[in-house]
């Protein structure tokens, strides 16, 4: 009987020896084999490689809960018959993290393995909004880019997350001494925001921080990806909101409209039928009804068009 653990067998002798050794154990001492696979030190990569044997020898129900959840995840992705198991969200998150942790050193061992890593990552990001997974996913996408391997599904999951932290995590690579890594970071950040960014903004992490701090509050995820375009707009900037906020910041406090009608103001303005005057008058009417003390006869034609400097801001 092989005294080495499955993990040691794989690392020292490779996948083929792992298979032979584990199958021998299953044939000659089933309990021993089950203990081997339920060993706490087993990595997901090793577990993945022996899944065909687990299925062949029908030991799925003898697995510990971690392995059962991992097997269920595998079965969900590849359309196989699933193990019946109940588990809570925290347990599943823990297993999904165990899965993607292995990718940091074993990514690329098998196409189906890589696909499972993508799926586990997407689940953590999209269903569980796990921030740690985002960092792992971004690092993995850079690793795959460096090796010329497929990373589009991973990138799609990352940008679909809607988590604004991804930009800084990606931008950290701008300062890399590795040109390929820095270029990849630059491409992603330029693509991320429908081109509303300059080369200078992405020339360094420090420059980018200035840009992202200004624009992040107005960015929203589109869910687009490389499937539809060579330069998908992963995110867009809400220019109307940004300009409105910029304008609002320039209006003296005493002349600002009451906060509760700000949203109505934006909606009114955006829905105006090409007639800004009509919007202004409607707003004026609303303001008159809300707070007569702050109401004045409308004079401004279009707060967006006429903003050139503080001195030229007119009151609403």
């Amino acid at each position, binding site marked *: 009987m092989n005294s080495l653990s499955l993990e040691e067998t794989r690392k020292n002798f490779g996948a083929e020896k792992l298979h032979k050794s584990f199958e021998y154990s299953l044939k000659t001492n089933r309990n021993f084999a089950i203990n081997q696979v339920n060993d706490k030190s087993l990595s997901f990569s090793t577990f993945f490689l022996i899944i065909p044997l687990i299925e062949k020898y029908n030991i799925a129900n003898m697995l510990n809960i971690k392995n059962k959840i991992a097997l269920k995840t595998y079965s*969900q992705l590849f359309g196989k018959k699933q193990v019946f198991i109940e588990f809570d969200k925290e347990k599943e998150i823990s297993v999904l993290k165990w899965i993607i942790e292995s990718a940091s050193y074993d990514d690329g061992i098998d196409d189906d393995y890589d*696909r499972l890593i993508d799926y586990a990552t997407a689940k953590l990001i999209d269903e569980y909004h796990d921030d740690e997974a985002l960092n792992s996913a971004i690092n993995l996408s850079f690793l795959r880019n460096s090796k010329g391997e*497929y990373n589009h599904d991973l990138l799609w999951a990352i940008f679909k997350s809607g988590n604004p932290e991804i930009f800084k995590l990606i931008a950290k690579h701008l300062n890399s001494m590795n040109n390929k890594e820095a270029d990849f970071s630059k491409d992603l950040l330029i693509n991320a925001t429908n081109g509303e960014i300059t080369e200078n903004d992405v020339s360094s992490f420090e420059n980018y921080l200035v840009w992202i701090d200004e624009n992040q509050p107005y960015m929203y995820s589109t869910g687009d990806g490389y*499937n*539809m375009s060579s*330069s998908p707009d992963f995110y867009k900037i809400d220019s109307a909101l940004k300009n409105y906020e910029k304008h609002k910041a320039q209006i003296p406090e005493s002349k600002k409209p009451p906060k509760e009608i700000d949203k109505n103001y934006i909606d009114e303005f955006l829905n105006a039928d090409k007639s800004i005057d009509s919007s202004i008058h409607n707003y004026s009417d609303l303001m008159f009804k809300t707070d007569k003390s702050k109401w004045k006869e409308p004079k401004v034609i279009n707060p967006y068009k006429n903003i050139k400097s503080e001195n030229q801001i007119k009151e609403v």
Partner: protein
Amino acid sequence: MIQLLQQSGDISSILNEYPQESMEFKIIDKMNKSEKKYRFQNKEHLKFEVDLRDEIIKSSVALFKSHMDFAVFRKTRGNPQYWERLGNGGLKLKNGVKASEAISDIFSNGRMYATECATAMVIVYYMAILQVFPQELFDKVFDNITLMNWHYLDRNISEAGMLNEKSDELPGDRRYFKNPDVDLTTPEWQGENVIDLGNGTFYGHGIGIHNSQTIINALNENRKEGSTTSAYLMEYAGNLDYKKLFKILIDYNQEDAEIPA
């Protein structure tokens, strides 16, 4: 409205060159009746775009009939006689192989190939251009091509990778059905690239030739459990840069004319 910048003349004379039931007639008629201004250098430029759009439609149908399989990138297949399979699932033209032969092989031996939907669009474009360019020109211009969705597009067709707001729906346009709530186990169903075939149907590799509702229904079958957010056709269209390709052809013809016999 169609405007010919270097020529005066009446569009109806161009229309009369095509049978009324033809796709070319339909395209010109639609452009001419549009409020948008379609500007062309001359009649030949207009006819080039129209012909190329027609070939895009024909190539779409031909690729559908080739029985090329659908596959996610990690399972891409290609004929190794012509294509080298890359680590990311792309297919790179082998050294010493003519692009015209390699592209044609996909249509002749479709069963040896498997790609996803965006790459299929690129294959359609190359085949269509091969129908309007002399083979020698095609091989010279596209001597180092890689097939992998909208990545690695040859610079002469790079515009095809962009989707832009559209005013009209023209036959030969590339369109995109988006599936916002796609099931995470099938990210390849996040959307479907299609060619507008000009008759109320679209060609999308992996789904086939169908009207928009059928395509939407197919995408909706691949949503997260319990989702009620439907897939939809986006109001954008993608196209080749017809003007750029026309210029390449004109320049080639002029060079050819200048070479003494």
